[in-house]
C-alpha cells in the first residue's frame, strides 16, 4: 500500500490568512481561513499594507488552529506548500517567510505554488481530474482559461487583456453604490432584474480565447451617467442583470468553444466569481447540453483558501518539485 502524503498548505496572497492540511491532495484534514473582509470594508477594497499587517498578526494562530483541527503532528507532515505568487507582494511575503521558517525548523521539504494552480486544484478536493481538462478561473484578479493535459502542467490559452471579471464587478458595484465586496451583490440584484440594456460583448479576434472587460465597464458607467443627466432613473436590478448577462455570455461562449476545440473530458470553474449563481447556471446549462462534466467547487473552496494550495502542492511535491530556502514572494508569476 502506498504511504499517505500529507501536505501543509499556506496562503496569504490577498486578504485571507489561510492554513490547511490535506491528505493525498484530495482529502481535507483542516482548512482554516481567517478573513479580513471586515477590516477592508471601510476602505471599499483591500488595502495592501493593512492586509500585510493582519497576516503577520494572524499567521501563528491560524497555523495552530489548522494543527488542532486536523489532529496532525509534525511527524506526519510530508511537506509544506505555500503560495509564491501572484498576489500582493507584502501579503505573500508573510506566508512565504512563515513557510520557509517552518520548513527549516522542522526540516521538511518546501514547495512554492502558483495561486491559480491552487484554484484549479480546489476542484480535486471534490472530484478526481480527467485529462485533457479545461479550467476557467474567474476572480477579482483573474480571468483565465487554462488547458491541462496532465497533472501539474498548465497551458494558458486565454487571459484578460485589461480588467479581470471580478474587477469589473467591483467597479460596477461601486457605481451602483453597493457595499463591498460588490460581486455577490450584483449577482443577487441580477436575479431580480431583466436584461433591458444590451451591453457590448468583447469577442476580440475570432479564434481568441482572451477576454476584455474594460469596454463593458465603461459602457455601464456611461449608461448610468447619461441616464442621470437626462433625469432618468435606471433600475439597479436591470443594470446588474444586463451587466451580468454580458459577462456571462462572453465567459460561457469562450469556455464552451475552448472545451470543444480541445476535446476536453472535464471543465473546471475556479476562483471567487465561480460562486456567482448566474455564471454557474449558464455554464451548467451549456455543458449539460454538450455532455461534458462541469466541476464547480463549493463556495468555501472557490474563494481563497489553503486547502487548494496544499492540493496543488501535493502534485508538485509528488512530481519531485522543491523550492529552496531562498524562495521569494512574486507579485506576478507566470503559470507553467
Amino acid at each position, binding site marked *: 500500500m502506498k504511504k499517505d502524503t500529507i501536505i501543509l498548505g499556506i496562503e496569504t496572497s490577498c486578504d485571507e490568512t489561510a492554513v490547511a492540511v490535506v491528505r493525498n491532495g484530495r482529502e481535507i484534514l483542516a482548512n482554516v481561513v481567517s478573513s479580513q473582509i471586515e477590516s477592508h470594508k*471601510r*476602505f471599499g477594497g483591500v*488595502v495592501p*499594507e*493593512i492586509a*500585510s*499587517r493582519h*497576516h*503577520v*498578526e494572524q*499567521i*501563528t*494562530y491560524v*497555523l*495552530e488552529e489548522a494543527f488542532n483541527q486536523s489532529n496532525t503532528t*509534525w511527524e506526519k507532515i510530508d511537506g509544506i506548500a505555500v503560495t509564491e505568487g501572484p498576489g500582493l507582494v*507584502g501579503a505573500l*511575503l*508573510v*506566508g*512565504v*517567510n*512563515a*513557510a*520557509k*521558517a*517552518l520548513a*527549516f*525548523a*522542522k*526540516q521538511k521539504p518546501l514547495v512554492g505554488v502558483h495561486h491559480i494552480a491552487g484554484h484549479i486544484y480546489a476542484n480535486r478536493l471534490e472530484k478526481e481530474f480527467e485529462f485533457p481538462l479545461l479550467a476557467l478561473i474567474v476572480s477579482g484578479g483573474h480571468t483565465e482559461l487554462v488547458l491541462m493535459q496532465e497533472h501539474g502542467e498548465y497551458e494558458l490559452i486565454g487571459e484578460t487583456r485589461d480588467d479581470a471579471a471580478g474587477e469589473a464587478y467591483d467597479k460596477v458595484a461601486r457605481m451602483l453604490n453597493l457595499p463591498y465586496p460588490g460581486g455577490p451583490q450584483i449577482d443577487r440584484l441580477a436575479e431580480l432584474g431583466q436584461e433591458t440594456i444590451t451591453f457590448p460583448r468583447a469577442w476580440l479576434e475570432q479564434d481568441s480565447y482572451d477576454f476584455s472587460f474594460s469596454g463593458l465597464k465603461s459602457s455601464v458607467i456611461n449608461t448610468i451617467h447619461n441616464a442621470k443627466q437626462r433625469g432618468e432613473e435606471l433600475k439597479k436590478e436591470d443594470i446588474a442583470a444586463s451587466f451580468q448577462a454580458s459577462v456571462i455570455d462572453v465567459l460561457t461562449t469562450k469556455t464552451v468553444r475552448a472545451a470543444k476545440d480541445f476535446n476536453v473530458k472535464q471543465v473546471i470553474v475556479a476562483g471567487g466569481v465561480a460562486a456567482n449563481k448566474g455564471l454557474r447556471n449558464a455554464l451548467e446549462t451549456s455543458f449539460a447540453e454538450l455532455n461534458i462534466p462541469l466541476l464547480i467547487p463549493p463556495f468555501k473552496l472557490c474563494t481563497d483558501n489553503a486547502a487548494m494550495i496544499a492540493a496543488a502542492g501535493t502534485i508538485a511535491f509528488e512530481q519531485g518539485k522543491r523550492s*529552496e*530556502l*531562498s524562495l*521569494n*514572494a512574486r507579485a506576478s508569476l507566470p503559470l507553467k
Partner: protein
Amino acid sequence: MNILAIDTSNQVLGVAIQQQGHITGEIVTNVSKNHSVRLMPAIEKLMKEVSLKPEALDQIIVAKGPGSYTGVRIGLSTAKSMAWALNIPIIGISSLEVLAYQGRFFNGLICPFFDARRGLVYSSCFKWEDNNMVMIEPEANMLMDEFLDKLKSYQHPVLFLSPDISVHQERIQEKLGNLAVIPDATFQLPRASHLIMAAKERSVDETHTLTPNYLRLAEAEAKWLEHQKRVNNE
C-alpha cells in the same frame, strides 16, 4: 541554552547565535538586497557553521521595528513561525534599542534613529544606567528637527547612532554643535548579537500576539481616521 537572534528591520540583515553564554556566530550585511530571499539561507548557513540543529534552539529573539514595514514583517513572520513550530519562547526587542547598544559605554545620551523620509525619523533616546539601557525619550516617528530641539534642551553630550547618519549629519551638527558626538561607521550599524544582550532580563513574549512595532499607522488608516474626524466636526 542556544539562542538565535534575527534582525531584518532595516537595511542591515543580522543573524546571531549564542551557545551556552557565548556568541558563536554572527552575520551582518549592509547591502540593499532582498531580506526575504536572504534571511533563511543566512540562518541555515550560520547554524551549520556553528553546528547547531534547529531542534536544539531554546529561544528566538527578533528585532520588531521600527523600520521598513516589509523588513520587520519578514523578521517577525520568520521568528514567530520558527518559535511556534519549535515550541520555544520568543522575545521581541525594539530595533532602536538594539542599535543603542552600540553606545553602551558612552556617558551621556544615546540616540539611535532610522531615517523615515520627508525629514522624519524613527527615534528614541537612551541612557546606560545601573547596568541597564534605560529609555528616556519614547520611541516616536517625528521630524528630525523637532527631535534635535528636544535633545538640545538636555544640554548634555548626545551620541548619534544610525545607518542613515549621513542623511542627517549636517543638520545634527548645525543644531547641536559640540554636544553632538558622531562615532565611526562601524558603530552605526545594529548588531544582531546585541539583541541577545538586550533580551537578557526581558520576560518572554506570547508568540501569537507579538506584533511589529511600526510606530506609524498604515497610510490608508491614518487618512480614514482624519476623514472621520473631519466628518464628526462638521
